[in-house]
């Protein structure tokens, strides 16, 4: 298992390098010139000097190498220095600076991360909590009205895009009924019960939108996995031993069916971050997705590169976690 994990970690390195190359090239080959917005009165030779001072006259592979060095060496050291207060080396290292705000991108991300984690994390947990019971009951009572309804709703949740459910929720619950605010206020601080209630009210809509979407995907897997297990011999054995139905389903079958579902849950985490881009836009949550959209619309290339790379890193990381988890949870799987 350990050798497998190490091998997977080693494979992850070229994958990440390749992804960073693609991200770098897409932005680098784009037909846009950073000096385009400077006044036209600047003579061409001065313009060439400006480009040289920005490092733009170097060949592509050198720029890519420098970018990688900045990304994988300088920024992590900066981050560690910030967290621990220790300093490595005297000279000040360059930082990836956002073109919009003129502040380091890493700081921007650190500011926006908690909001995204709160909303996305809660919605994922809610999604799992909804999906698992629905999947279990649907499979146990296959073709019952509950199963039919559950499958239909999960198909619906699968097909209806989050930007429509989000807007629909706003129309119904904010505009018509006036129950919940349509904008998520991230400056809100929870101090007592009343403010906690306000927080619940504002988080409920984004969480439900994302949660329903996640639940519909997970419950499909849960149901299929339960159905696979319910017909196995060990279930008959457990019943023959005289175990109660509750123990058979909730202990024997559920534990075995959770194995593939847990990996699906792990694989889904980065997708949830991607999906959150849209939900954050709908409810004006100023998280990572909101930062990305703002940076894209403002042409802020360093921020876009960093964020895209973080999303890619999350995907690679959670693929790894899913594979390793599968090996740990299921002793029948041996990778060696």
């Amino acid at each position, binding site marked *: 298992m350990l050798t497998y994990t190490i091998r997977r970690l080693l494979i992850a390195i070229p994958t990440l390098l390749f*992804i960073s190359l693609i991200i770098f090239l897409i932005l680098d080959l784009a037909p846009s010139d950073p000096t385009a917005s400077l006044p036209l009165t600047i003579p061409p030779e001065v313009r060439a000097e400006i480009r040289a001072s920005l490092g733009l006259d170097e060949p592509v592979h050198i720029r890519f190498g420098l970018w990688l060095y900045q990304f994988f060496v300088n920024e992590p050291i900066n981050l560690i220095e910030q967290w621990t207060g220790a300093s490595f080396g005297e000279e000040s290292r360059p930082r990836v600076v956002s073109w919009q705000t003129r502040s380091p991108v890493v700081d921007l991300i650190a500011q926006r991360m908690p909001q995204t984690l709160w909303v996305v994390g809660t919605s994922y947990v809610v999604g799992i909590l909804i999906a698992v019971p629905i999947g279990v009951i649907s499979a146990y009572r296959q073709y019952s009205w509950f199963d039919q309804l559950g499958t239909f709703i999960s*198909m619906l949740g699968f097909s209806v*895009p989050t*930007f429509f459910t989000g*807007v629909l929720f706003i*129309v119904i619950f904010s505009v018509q009924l006036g129950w919940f605010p349509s904008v998520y206020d991230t400056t809100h601080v929870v101090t007592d019960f009343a403010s906690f209630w306000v927080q619940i009210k504002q988080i409920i809509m984004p969480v439900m939108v994302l949660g329903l979407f996640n639940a519909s995907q997970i419950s499909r897997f849960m149901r299929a996995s339960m159905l696979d297990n319910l017909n196995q011999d060990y279930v008959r054995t457990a019943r023959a031993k005289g175990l109660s139905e509750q123990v058979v389903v909730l202990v024997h079958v559920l534990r075995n069916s959770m194995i593939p579902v847990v990996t699906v849950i792990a694989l889904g985490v980065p997708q949830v971050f*991607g999906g959150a881009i849209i939900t954050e836009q709908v409810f004006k949550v100023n998280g990572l997705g909101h930062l990305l959209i703002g940076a*894209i619309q403002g042409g802020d290339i360093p921020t876009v590169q960093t964020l895209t790379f973080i*999303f890619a890193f999350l995907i690679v990381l959670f*693929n790894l976690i899913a594979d390793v988890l599968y090996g740990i949870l299921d002793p029948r799987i041996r990778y060696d």
Partner: protein
Amino acid sequence: MTDTTTNQAPRNQWWDVWDQFKTHKGALLGAGFFVFMLLFVYLGPYVWGIDPGHIDPRVRNQGMSFAHPMGTDQLGRDMFARMMAGGQISIAVGLTAMLLSLVLGTFIGVLAGYFKRIDGLLMRFTDLFLALPLLPLLLVIVMLYRDPLRAAFGPETGIFILIVFVIGITSWMQTARIVRGDVLALKEREFVLAARSIGTPPHRMILRHLLPNVMSPIMVSATLGIANAIITESALSFLGLGFPSDFPTWGRLLFDGTDWLQRNPERVIWPGLAISLTVLSVNYIGDGLRDALDPRIRGR
């Protein structure tokens, strides 16, 4: 397949598929709705006859009425006509992007499955693509390459090409994997051995013997591809990085409608319903096709 009931006339296998497909209620409904949507979107404008771009300031922001069944927008343009025009682009994007991703996916899948030497390389390539953060990358590509393409091909065609292209090249991976798996399994079958033993060259082997046999998974992933492409295009338009307002798609109409939520919420609901129901119907068609094309289920 040897038929025991000899009095029956020989039937095309597609009739069997159709018979099985008909038993799936959701799939049948979905197919009906999808055909209805196609008719509404492509033939509707000839019947309705109002220009979707016609501005009439006297009837701004109207609700539903007989003259304007879905109301009008802030410039007095008829929403019913705009829904038809938007649907044309949305469905066209869905179909073309699906075709592109299908061709790419099938090509790479067949190559990887058939030629052992490039299998490892192509599959690593597929895995790399699967690890890309698609939505952020799509947004970035659209942002960077939108203006040059607009300048080269005109505002509507340029953005159409760009969006179809980016959706196509980011959604072929699942098809490639499925096709490769099926080709690997088919390669071990006797009929392939027989074909090879009479000296069939690789290209004819692929076109005549392998491709017809992987048609069923390709058709199922085609339906998923349409659904995925329609949702992705709407998401891009919703984030303001898709089609411009003059050439609306359903996603763009929804996006434009969000500014008028309090006044006319139906401006959001109609395009949203259209997207959701179309995707739902396509997904149901896929479900039905999967059952109908599976010979193990079809016999029963």
